[in-house]
Structures are given as structure tokens and as C-alpha cells.
């Protein structure tokens, strides 16, 4: 990069492009891309967590993310390494092997990990959600039986709510669990289960009672239980480092002692899990958007057309600024939602939904625009930006579609007391 001295002199002579000078001045004075630095406003301890997550993402995940995507590898060893650092049960209580951190700490960690590989981080967040559900709603035996292995990722977990016939209308699920003596016998199937077939512990929402949400209970089903089988591995646009399969129950007998909480409490447990899950998924989108903005920025500084670098185009400068602004706004909303959930604020459910809605939509747009800025190169699999776009597209759909998020928010606004 040219020494700045000559540039200032030339600017004085009025013969250098003003925008280039401004860019250099900003870079020199305020530090590189510091307006989107995700460590602003964090405590020293949170900065340490974030640093470990960023380092892990850069060293252990980013070099492999393309291969994991192209070869559809479920990176068990890497995830276990992450678990050794405490990422297996981030907000699970320490007495069963968790790290006992807050929702905000968790968001910061997933945002950083996501810059290394969105798909793997998203799976880790789903695993965390399941571990938390057992930690929070399980009795002592269940917590001691499952949580330590989940926190160390000795065993992996999957969250089973969606069915072929019930996605957004989750409460209409049909998988039945009939009590026969000291077992429930499960019949039915779940669809689109992340990790399905490769994971060991399945947290399953099933119908033990009548229609609607009040008839749903939550059971923990272990792989290898007779009557538990899996569909074919789905071929997806993204999230390829985690297998997705249908989970099928055919007269699958599960001990009653595997039920989390009371009969009829299952839907509430599922939704409470999802509040945190939505923050986590939004955090994964943030990481992808952050990485994409940096990639776009680097490309603008290097790619030349019409005799100058793309960074000299005011349109692209403004576009990049808009992307950065949306990224920071999104980040603030997620972090506020995390705090609201941690403190059990009355607005927790709504703000988690708002965060999921806004952040997944905006971050997808940011990544998509970053791809556009790369021109033809953005479409090549040699460049990471397309994987960020493909991987976070599904965040607008799962853990509650963004349409369902609007339902939750509008209900809060329009319900008369």
C-alpha cells in the first residue's frame, strides 16, 4: 500500500481522487473496519470468550468449511475439540458439565464460530439447545444421565418437532406416544431433523394426550432403541456439514422415565428451547454476514475496473456502508434479545422473534450483496461468500419461519387483554 505522505501532498494539489484519500484516512485513523468490530461494548471476559471462538473458527473450521460442504462431512472430531473448550453446553449448568454462561455470552460465541463454518456452528447450537432442555426440564437422573455426555459431545443430540404434516402448525403434530405400562410406544415420523441418523440422543415432541399443544409431551429417545429408524439423507442447498434425515418411529418403546417434565408440558418445553434457539440461529447469521462484509471489503480494495479499484465507486462505498449498518443494527438486536431472555423479561418471547426475523432476513441480504460485489467470482465455489449465502438462507425458514415470527409479534401487538 502506497505511503500516505505523497497522497496528502497530491490531494493538496487537487489532482487525486478524493474518495481514495478519505478511505485511506479512515483506515489510518480509526483502525481497520472497526465500525463493525463485534467486540465493541463487551466486557473483558466476553472479549476473551469471543477471542477463543474466533481463533477456533479461523484455525479449526474455516480451512475446512468448503470441504465439509462439498463432501457433506459431519465433522465429529472438530466438534468434540470445540466441546473440550466448553462449547458443547454453553448455557447448561456446570454441575452436569456445562459452562454455565449467559445467553449473551452464547450469542457472542456462536457469532464468532459461525465465521468459520455456519453449518457446523448451527448444528452445535441445536445440540446446545437440546442439552439445555434436558438440563432445565429434566429431573436429577435425566440430567446426570444425558448432560455430561452431551456437554463433552461424547454423544450428539437432535431436536425433533417438525413432521411432514406439521411445520409452522407445530401444535398439530401427529406422532403418538401411547402409554403401555412403564413405557410409551411411539408411532409416527419427524421430518428435516438436523443430525438425524448420526446423532445419539433425540429430544422428541409427541402426543400423549388430546389435540392441540396441551396434549404434547417431550421424550428423550436414544439411538438404537428398537423401532427407531431413519429416512434417506436429504440433499440440501446448504447446511451440508450436518446430515438431515426423517426420524421414524414404528412401535418404538421408550421408558416413561425418559419423559422431560410433565405430560402436556412438551410443547411449552419445545417453545422455550426455541426462544434460545432463535437467538442462536440469528447469531449464526450475524457471523456469516460479518465474514461476508469483510470479504466484500477486501475484494473492493483489490479488484480493478475502469482504471481504478472498485473501492472508488461511490455506489459500492454506499452499498458497503449500508451493509455494515444493517449488520451492526442486527447485532444489537440479537444481543438485546439475549439479555431479555437471560433476565426473563416480559418481552423476551417477542424480542427473540423480532431478532430472529430481522437478523436472518437482513444478514441474508448482506451476504447476498457481498456475493454480488464479487461479480462472477462470487458465484464460484472457490470463493467462500457463496457458501455463506447458501448456508444462512435456511435460517429464514427453520426454528420457526419468519412468517411465524410475524405471527408471534402481531399477536403481542393485537391481543386484547
Amino acid at each position, binding site marked *: *500500500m*502506497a*505511503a*500516505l*505522505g505523497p497522497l*496528502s501532498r497530491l490531494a493538496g494539489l487537487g489532482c487525486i481522487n478524493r474518495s481514495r484519500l478519505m478511505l485511506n484516512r479512515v*483506515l*489510518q*485513523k*480509526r*483502525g*481497520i473496519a*472497526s465500525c463493525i468490530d463485534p467486540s465493541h461494548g463487551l466486557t*473483558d*471476559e466476553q*472479549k*476473551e*470468550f469471543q*477471542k*477463543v471462538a474466533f*481463533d*477456533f473458527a479461523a484455525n479449526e473450521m474455516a480451512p475446512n468449511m468448503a470441504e465439509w460442504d462439498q463432501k457433506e462431512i459431519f465433522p465429529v472430531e472438530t466438534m468434540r475439540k470445540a466441546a*473440550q*473448550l*466448553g*462449547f458443547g453446553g*454453553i448455557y447448561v449448568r*456446570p454441575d452436569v458439565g456445562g*459452562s454455565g*454462561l449467559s445467553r449473551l455470552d452464547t450469542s457472542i460465541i456462536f457469532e464468532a464460530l459461525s465465521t468459520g463454518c455456519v453449518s457446523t456452528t448451527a448444528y452445535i447450537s441445536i445440540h446446545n439447545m437440546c442439552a439445555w432442555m434436558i438440563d432445565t426440564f429434566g429431573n436429577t437422573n435425566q440430567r446426570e444421565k444425558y448432560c455430561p455426555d452431551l456437554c463433552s459431545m461424547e454423544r450428539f443430540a437432535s431436536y425433533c418437532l417438525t413432521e411432514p404434516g406439521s411445520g409452522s402448525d407445530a401444535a398439530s403434530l401427529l406422532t403418538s406416544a401411547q402409554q403401555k405400562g412403564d413405557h410409551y410406544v411411539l408411532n409416527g415420523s419427524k421430518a428435516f431433523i438436523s443430525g438425524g441418523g448420526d446423532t445419539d440422543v433425540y429430544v422428541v415432541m409427541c402426543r400423549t394426550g388430546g389435540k392441540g399443544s396441551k396434549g404434547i409431551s417431550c421424550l428423550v429417545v436414544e439411538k438404537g432403541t428398537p423401532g427407531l429408524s431413519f429416512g434417506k439423507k436429504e440433499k440440501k442447498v446448504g447446511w451440508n456439514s450436518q446430515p438431515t434425515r426423517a426420524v421414524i418411529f414404528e412401535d418404538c418403546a421408550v421408558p416413561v422415565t425418559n419423559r422431560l417434565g410433565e405430560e402436556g408440558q412438551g410443547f411449552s418445553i419445545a417453545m422455550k428451547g426455541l426462544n434460545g434457539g432463535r437467538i442462536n440461529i440469528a447469531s449464526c447469521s450475524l457471523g456469516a454476514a460479518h465474514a461476508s462484509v469483510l470479504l466484500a471489503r477486501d475484494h473492493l480494495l483489490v479488484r480493478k475496473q475502469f482504471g481504478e479499484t472498485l473501492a472508488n465507486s461511490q455506489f459500492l462505498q454506499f452499498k458497503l456502508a449500508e451493509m455494515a449498518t444493517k449488520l451492526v443494527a442486527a447485532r444489537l438486536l440479537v444481543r438485546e434479545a439475549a439479555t431479555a431472555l437471560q433476565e426473563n423479561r416480559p418481552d423476551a418471547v417477542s424480542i427473540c422473534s423480532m431478532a430472529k426475523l430481522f437478523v436472518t432476513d437482513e444478514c441474508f441480504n448482506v451476504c447476498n450483496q457481498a456475493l454480488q460485489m464479487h461479480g462472477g467470482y462470487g458465484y464460484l465455489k472457490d470463493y467462500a461468500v457463496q457458501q455463506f449465502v447458501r448456508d444462512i438462507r435456511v435460517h429464514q425458514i427453520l426454528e420457526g419461519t419468519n412468517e411465524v415470527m410475524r405471527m408471534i409479534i402481531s399477536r403481542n401487538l393485537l391481543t386484547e387483554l
Partner: protein
Amino acid sequence: MSGRVLVGVKRVIDYAVKIRVKPDHTGVVTDGVKHSMNPFCEIAVEEAVKLKEKKLIKEVVAVSCGPQQSQETIRTALAMGADRGIHVEVSGKDYDSLGPLQVSKILAALAKKEEAQLIILGKQAIDDDCNQTGQMTAALLDWPQGTFASEVSLEAEKIKVVREIDGGLETIKINTPAVLTADLRLNTPRYATLPNIMKAKKKKIANVKPADLGVDLTSRLEVLRVDEPPQREAGVKVETVEDLVAKLKDTGKI
């Protein structure tokens, strides 16, 4: 030998950052720029923590000389497993002119005060590339030194050090107390774990002033000017060997 190890850790500009020279050519831009622990210091901390895990030493003390922000670097060392920290406060003009001579005086004073058995440092810092602090510290203390260590093993009252030198690998045995400096292949530093980061919060960092240690911070060096490396210029093609020799003579290369 079961004693105390001092590990020096330096806060430097992160290795991934593009360095920019200040317009007044007095130094490089540090404001708002990402900083982290010198990579060789990370290797030094890792080695010290490993020795403690093998129960060969009792306590690891992380030391850093610099302004308030140096405490972040000490916290990272604590999160990796150091037991406590010492922050030697140096700021402003003193910090700008802080170099190996001053730091080694500080480390020597601390080593005596803390009754350290071993000092482990990185072989050099990635900002000034001096590669002097370890050697100077050993000289001031009149201790043996094992520099560019790629392997360290404690045997009874001696330390066996395999050193990476230009000719290959050299193995030496030195008495304790001693100074070691870590080279790249000594080990792979661990990631701090979340529980260790939380435990690090409770570990103590003592504040010390250089004056308390009787150290004079006056620098014997004055930085005249800092410039970027010269821009790479276009080469010139020549037709014959005679032309090449003539050109080389012209530009004073031979």
C-alpha cells in the same frame, strides 16, 4: 526442581493486521488496531503451563510491561493456565521507548524478588524482532540461557534444551536457575477453555511500578525515522551477460 516460573508476555499488534506507518514517520499506527499476545509468548506460556501440569514446577507467574491494556494480555495467559500475573506499569513516552534493555532489567529485578527458578520468554516479539530480551535478562542475572528452544526437558537440577540454530539442532544442558526463550516448534499453544477464562477472572494481577523495582527506564536508543519498505520497482531485461555485469556494477551491487 519445583519452583516458580516467570513468563514474559508482550502485547503486540496482531499478526494478521496490515501494518501502516504513521504520516509523521515516528512509528506505526497502533490506535484502534487489533492487538494480541505475541505468538512466541503464547508458546512460552504453554510450555510453562505444561511443566506445571507435569508437576515439575509449582507456580506460573505471567508478567507484562506496558500500559493498562497489557492486563488483557496477562488475562489471556491466566486463561491458558498461569496462576497469577504481574503488570509492570509503563505508559506514555516511557512505553514508546521501552525496549529489551529496560524489560530485561525489569525481569531480572522481578526474578530476584519472586525467587524464580526459571524465566521463559518468547524468542522475539513480532513488532520489533529484537531477539534480545532473553539474552540480556540472563546476562543481568548471570544465569545460563537456552535460547531458540524447540524442546525442553527438566532433569534433576539441570535443564536439557534442544536449540534450533542455523546449522541444525544443538542440545545443551544448563544449570538452574536459567532463562529459556521459546522458538516456533517448541509446542502448540492451547486454546483457553471457557471454564478457564472464568477462573482467570478470580486470579490476581499485581500492579508494580518500574521505580519500585529500582529500574531506570531511560532509553539509550532514539528512533529517527520509520518508513515503509521501498515499493517494489519494475525490473530491467538485459540481452547479454556483459550487460548484466555492467548494470550490477552501475547500481553498486558489485
